[in-house]
């Protein structure tokens, strides 16, 4: 099953990966081969088979709704690449320099 370069770039955008041109070329070939292999699952008629999302019988595990200690602010921010006060600092998400 082939996948074209345009689709690869669309998926990369969904996945928030700024692929280089060389990466996009290589992934077009590699993903084509992998998709060919995994498409094997389509051979089976599974209309009456329910899906499995995980192997346990657990349904709705509840925890008591009681406050308990969590990470201190400085710990939560300790690994941040950029911090401003008590916040994670990031580049602009809106504004004139942000295109749609």
């Amino acid at each position, binding site marked *: 099953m082939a996948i074209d370069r345009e689709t690869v770039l669309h998926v990369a955008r969904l996945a928030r990966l700024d692929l280089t041109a060389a990466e996009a070329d290589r992934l077009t070939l590699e993903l084509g081969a992998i998709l060919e292999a995994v498409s094997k699952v389509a051979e089976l008629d599974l209309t009456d088979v329910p899906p499995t999302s995980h192997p346990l019988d657990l349904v709705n595990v509840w925890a008591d709704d009681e406050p308990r200690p969590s990470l201190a602010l400085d710990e939560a921010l300790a690994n941040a*690449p950029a911090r401003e006060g008590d916040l994670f600092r990031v580049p602009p998400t809106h504004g004139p320099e942000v295109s749609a």
Partner: protein
Amino acid sequence: MIDTLRLTAEGALALIESREVTSAELHAAYVAAAGARDEELHAYLRLVDAAEGTGVPIALKDVISTKGVETTAGSKILAGYVPVFDATVAARCKAAGMPIIGKTNTDEFAMGSSTENSAYGPSFNPWDPTRVPGGSGGGTAAAVSGGLAPWGLGSDTGGSIKQPSALCGNVGLRPTYGTVSRFGVVAFASSLDQVGPVAKTVRDVALLYSIIAGRDENDSTTVELPEIVELPTAETLAGVRIGIPKQVWDLAGIEPGVRASFETAIETARSLGAEIGECDLPLSFDYGMACYYLIAPAEASSNLARFDGVRYGPRVDAPTYREMVEQTRDAGFGDEPKRRIMLGTYALSAGYYDAFYGQAQRVRTLLMREHRAALDAFDLIATPTSPTVAFPVGERAADPLAMYACDVMTIPSCLAGLPGLNIPSGLSEGLPVGLQLIGPQFGENALFRAGYALECAIGFDTVPERLR
């Protein structure tokens, strides 16, 4: 003089209890062994020089968060990340008195079968350093096999404990899904990931499993163990019914030496009193790989969305938020995580979800039913763990599908959530061969009993020949 190549964790514990050595002396011995041999093996990404604890030291795979000790999951996107809390499994090891020797190498985000996908370079097999130690937990396996740790923890999504244990001649357990907490463990595929022990003996693996297993309130997918963990003592398999999937004999790519070692192990089991029969896992062998390589990448694409250059890890500066995230991710992830993120995103995207991810989830149901039927008729299932012995570094690195094929026999039981134990069954071409035993859900004690009886009868020397 502490012989780190031969000393088991139980042996180390006995030395501590009889006051012949201290925990700190043991820790120093393993750190010194790493100093002498890890330049060649690259089992560790970093050593922890300060020994804290009174027990047997341990190596932890670098997907396990360790407070104050850098944890990278083998990825550049977590370079410099220093956790501010311990993973539950790390905390339980520390509570049991175990000092940490170091953090072991792994394929990036535990994605791979050779450690060649580590952003920090591969580890090498102590039996033959021109060969891979398996993966993704090749660092832990190489550390245990090479005498750089008495035991260690790995993580297993589709074979990352069992396969490197096979290639390095160790005992390794992938526990039943839900028995060991993943809190603080860097996530790959959450419906599959399990943490488990690697050691030189089945009893050591059982002991370490007893320490890490059990419900954790911080991981809602964990359950209480239905029975306490028992260290095995009996050297018999009387009455144990072992099923061999008939598909094993027709599997393409299985090496003659691996097959011979497997056949010998089965005869040994028979001589110990086991009843050997044939079971049937046709869909597992034919569709297991395809099912896994849809479900695992789909979950990975979701789990790895958190690496965005905002809360941790290096950031590529860019004028806008979106460009920063996209450039940080492209620079930070290596080729294999990118392949799996792309594959998973595609499989989950509009128009393809039902045909790929939904279909794979249905195949998974059939694989679970197939295993349940086999384990109704048999107490355990046995297969070789890996179709091949350790392969040369570089041999499969350029071919993702050839690398994925390493896990053809370890994957199906992972999808079914079942426990699997690797024990060494012998040598082929001078390299270890692994026997995989699969048990029913929560059947760890049965695996330990069978594994121990076989281990005693096989008498495999876990010290690599060239290091004896």
